[in-house]
């Protein structure tokens, strides 16, 4: 038996189409083009997640979309074992820009995750909706 067969399979999870609002539409339009956007406030300079029209730190309405390479490290995670479609991992990524992002981890085995691990965004297709950001080991 080969090593490949002995190792647990990489996790995958069907992700439903996200609810898109008038406020989040630019994010999902960019996602369709494979671009990962965050928001930054031009008044206080802070980046935040999830993206908002008003800065959650200084309440300025001068927030702008910014393309992010989607690089960061795992803040924490948990692998859900009780799933009819197999184990999947939820967790937070602390982006290089600062904010923490809730996501799923893919292209990794259930025992292949650790806090502090470097990860990078990729987009996973959804049925009848825009692709959604997920993170994989960098």
């Amino acid at each position, binding site marked *: 038996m080969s090593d490949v067969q002995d190792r647990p399979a990489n996790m995958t999870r069907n992700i439903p189409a*996200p*609810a898109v609002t*008038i406020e989040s539409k630019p994010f999902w339009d960019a996602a369709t083009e494979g671009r990962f956007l965050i928001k930054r406030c031009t008044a206080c300079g802070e980046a935040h997640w999830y993206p908002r029209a008003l800065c959650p730190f200084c*309440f300025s309405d001068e927030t702008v979309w910014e393309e992010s390479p989607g690089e960061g490290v795992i*803040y924490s995670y948990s*692998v859900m*074992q009780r799933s009819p479609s197999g184990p*999947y991992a939820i967790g937070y990524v602390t982006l290089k820009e600062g904010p923490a992002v809730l996501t799923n981890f893919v292209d990794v085995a259930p025992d292949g995750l650790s806090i502090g691990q470097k990860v990078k965004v990729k987009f996973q297709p959804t049925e009848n909706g825009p692709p959604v950001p997920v993170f994989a080991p960098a």
Partner: protein
Amino acid sequence: MSIKGKAYIVGAYEHPLRDAPDKSTPQLHAECAKGALEDAGLSKDDIDGYFCAGDAPGFGAMSMIDYMGLRNVRHMDSTETGGSSYLLHVGHAAQAIAEGKCKVALVTLAGRPRQNKGGWGGGAGKPGQLTDGPPEAGYENIYGGSTHNTYGMCAMRHMHEYGTTSEQLAWIKVAASHHAQYNPNAFLKDVVTVEQVVNSRMISDPLHLLDCCVVTDGGGALIVTTPEIARSLNRPKVKVMGAGESPKGPMGGRNLDLTHSGAVWSGPIAFGEAGVTPADIKYASIYDSFTITVLMQLEDLGFCKKGEGGKFVADGNLISGVGKLPFNTDGGGLCNNHPTNRGGITKVIEAVRQLRGEAHPKVQVPNCDIALAHGTGGSLGTRHGAATLIMEREA
């Protein structure tokens, strides 16, 4: 006490739009808040009370507090009475201010009925259709989050930062099971061991099946009254001494910290009002949706230092008659009851039993004169509301 003359309306703002196709409902709430703050000459971080009704999308007041980053809120009210809600809210805000529960209260209303012919539902719409639900929904609800795996993330991070172990968490379940064996109504009555907990099947790591609370039907009720009526009744008197509350959420994702809960704010408020300290508490009802919930809240309430919860709960320290802090002597949510997935009321009920001396004799705390009940609602891993209540038996 009356609210007469105890509170003033200092900011008022009506949004200029009558047709808002280009703004979300959360955005309209926030723009109204910003307008009222500017009218008053105050800033967002001055707000320590938040009031909203059914038009505010999301989870009670939690979603809008998190969206707006209202990090100093210590009083929340989402009473819903339709269009009259906001007048009630002014009255409730005046009560809260008169009592010192908050100093600057924000009331918001907003919506877009012209854009959402059927109202907002919160879920994904038809393909290509825009929705207008909770602000976090599109960015979070797609990832299969549940209480199990979002609390799992908290436990994972706590273990990473403080070296907390599964065996230490298991002691919380063990203590609850020791109490549940004496409760004839408990859903689970068998005493379990640390080994049984850590060897039960993994649900969402590092939380095992026996780290999770039960799922039960049922319910509870409470009656609160005046000192005069309480004295007229033929029942032991349980006096409310202090209460504190707080929201917590990622609030923009900066400096995310999943190892503490809103109890770090609600606890000191309640202790301060009651004029007691954790050392005075003879019995504690601690929300136990999961073992990690208990451990984090015990730390945050000051029963032990941050990061030392694992040592604190080990070796039976939470078992009545054995340890220093008897907790959840009904068996708690972990063994007894978690009716309709909301355990807060049973936390108060068991504290009342203890203060009355009406708990089961095998778990009754001797001379139980001061008790604490604490609850967490929502998810410690995303956004939640915390509430602490301190009660005293009056001779």
